[in-house]
């Protein structure tokens, strides 16, 4: 009897008010067992579904013996304890072994009936044919597995990209201290838009760049890579940072992307008078200069975003560095870090200046101190990327 026939028989039985037919031909398998599991009663539907003979079951087989070995373990370790402790077990997935050895996926509900004084009497078991449901569940499991695999791949790709785009350790500059930190937002499964780079043009001639490409993900990473490569190439033969940024602006305008970015470029040159720093900012927060004897202050002049205007306003500012001077380059993930998940309070420039005053002993102590301070402010869970680069004259 298939399910449709069984259902029809069930309704016929309803009309007839025939309790016997209702039990025997219900569209669900019924079994009753002793508390030990020995089968004492079984309905026709179950026998039809499984091809098992009534006389082979009654008083001869336990319910657990009708299951696959794996199912039997589950029966002993989960189903039986639940039944004994709670009196019921619901929606347990078992495979019933048919007389021909094939398996019938089933969902099983059971109740344990007890006497008034709590002595177990009988277990009533309802077995539902779950063949199609199980196939669907397998599909779900496969889909879940695929989703987990893709997520793992995406995370790996994001991390690899980040590692490529962020120099793992800042280089040594003879005569200067250099330290840098980068912390991606959230759990690191996305490629952030912040980056920094420090590279040598010639003896005593270095460039430090920090930037923020709008957006996240692979497209932002492509623009980041383009910006970095362009800055490196354009810095050769262009001594003024504003010219480098102008070239980058043209490249971005002609690149098929909607993305713009903010970049700040610092050219460091060793002269007879000492190190000079020339800065140009394209839409980026101005660097902070910390100098012994005075409070930290921004230096340079604000400039336009890159990748938006045909002729952006960009200006160079030069400063002669003294011993103890430190320049802090940072992205807006520092100053716009918010307190708490819904916090309206920003970390802000004043806190940054205070942190700089507290940690100005060395480039490393500045980077570590700022990073720690801003992370603590956001209770360790930054919502935006954070990048900090510090150059200091020992």
């Amino acid at each position, binding site marked *: 009897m298939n399910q449709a026939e069984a259902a029809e028989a069930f309704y016929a039985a309803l009309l007839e008010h025939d309790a016997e037919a209702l039990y025997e031909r219900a569209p669900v398998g019924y079994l009753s067992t002793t*508390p*030990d*599991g020995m089968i004492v009663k079984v309905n026709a539907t179950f026998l039809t579904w499984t091809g098992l003979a009534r006389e082979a079951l009654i008083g001869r087989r*336990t319910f*657990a013996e009708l299951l*696959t*070995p*794996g*199912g*039997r*373990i*589950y*029966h*002993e*370790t*989960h189903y*039986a*304890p*639940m039944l*004994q*402790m*709670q009196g*019921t077990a619901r*929606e*347990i*997935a*078992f*495979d019933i072994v048919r007389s021909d050895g094939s398996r019938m*996926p089933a969902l099983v509900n059971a109740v344990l009936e007890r006497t008034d004084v709590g002595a177990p009497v009988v277990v009533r078991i309802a077995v539902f044919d779950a063949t199609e449901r*199980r196939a669907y*569940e397998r599909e*779900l*499991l496969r889909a879940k597995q695929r989703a987990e695999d893709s997520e793992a791949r995406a995370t790996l790709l994001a991390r690899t990209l980040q590692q490529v785009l962020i120099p793992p350790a800042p280089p040594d500059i003879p005569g200067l201290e250099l330290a840098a930190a980068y912390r991606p937002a959230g759990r690191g499964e996305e490629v952030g838009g912040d980056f920094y780079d420090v590279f040598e043009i010639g003896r005593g001639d270095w460039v430090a760049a920090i930037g923020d490409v709008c957006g996240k993900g692979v497209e932002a990473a492509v623009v980041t890579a383009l910006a970095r490569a362009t800055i490196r190439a354009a810095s050769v033969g262009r001594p003024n940072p504003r010219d480098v940024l102008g070239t980058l602006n043209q490249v971005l305008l002609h690149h098929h992307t909607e993305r713009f970015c903010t970049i700040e470029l610092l050219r460091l040159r060793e002269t007879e008078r000492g190190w000079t720093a020339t800065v140009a900012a394209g839409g980026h927060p101005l660097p902070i200069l910390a100098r012994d004897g005075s409070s930290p202050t921004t230096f340079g002049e604000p400039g336009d975003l890159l990748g938006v205007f045909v002729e952006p306003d960009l200006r160079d500012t030069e400063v002669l560095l003294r011993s103890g001077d430190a320049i802090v380059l940072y992205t807006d993930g520092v100053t716009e870090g918010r307190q708490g998940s819904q916090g309206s309070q920003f970390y802000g420039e004043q806190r940054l200046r205070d942190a700089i005053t507290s940690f100005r002993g060395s480039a490393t102590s500045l980077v570590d101190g700022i990073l720690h301070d801003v992370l603590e402010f956001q209770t360790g869970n930054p919502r935006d990327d954070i990048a900090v680069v510090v150059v200091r004259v020992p």
Partner: protein
Amino acid sequence: MAPVEVAERYNIKLSGQLDGQPMLFAHGFGCDQNMWRYVAPSFEDRFRVVLFDHIGAGGSDLSAYDPQRYSTLAGYAEDVLEICEALDLHDVVFVGHSVSAMIGALAAIETPDRFAKLVFVGPSPRYIDDGDYVGGFGPDDITELLDSLESNYLGWSGAMAPVIMGNPDRPELGDELTASFCRTDPEIARGFARATFLSDNRADLRHVKTPTLVLQSSNDAIAPIAVGEFVRDALPDSTYVLLDATGHCPNLSAPEATRAAIASFVR
């Protein structure tokens, strides 16, 4: 680790006599310390009864689950020793159900001084047949078990985790237990199943110097009589009791007989 941290991590429940001999009950694969509900209280008159959940089960700290540490039973045995150390338990009577019998064996081999007696309820040192040794299962059966775990854990959802964990005290088997009993994170269940059913501790048994009671159900589909007899014969100092009980959990299906057998061994 501080005792309080350990107590929270393993959801430790203490009862019985403050200065009594400690009796540490360890549950097997599948459920949690509630499995001892019908047995443990009867020892509170003389013993310090200690119940706990293995990491990943019941009310334990799920975040403490480390797939590497718990890929073999040795990780669970380390936990038992950690509990003994943190609670300063000595002269311990260890009662282990199912796979926790072998976990107790490993712990007692590593630190014999801690343990006075061991009680193994339905032990099996190896579930998979091997040559003349009949464990009761073929390798395919275990694969099938892992599949059946996946099918059944479709009913488990992350939303239930707080219910399972946020259960400071479970005095009665109420609705909250219905929601959580015998249910756990599918990945953890799979890991525990693998550690359990792929283990082979036959060679370890002869190193167990602690006197051990082997409690065998007369009808156990997971640890058949032949396996119980194997454990009895392999242990240097064993007492064997065959219980007239059906199923792998005589502590639930035949609590009286289980209590009596343990009592005559430890009292």
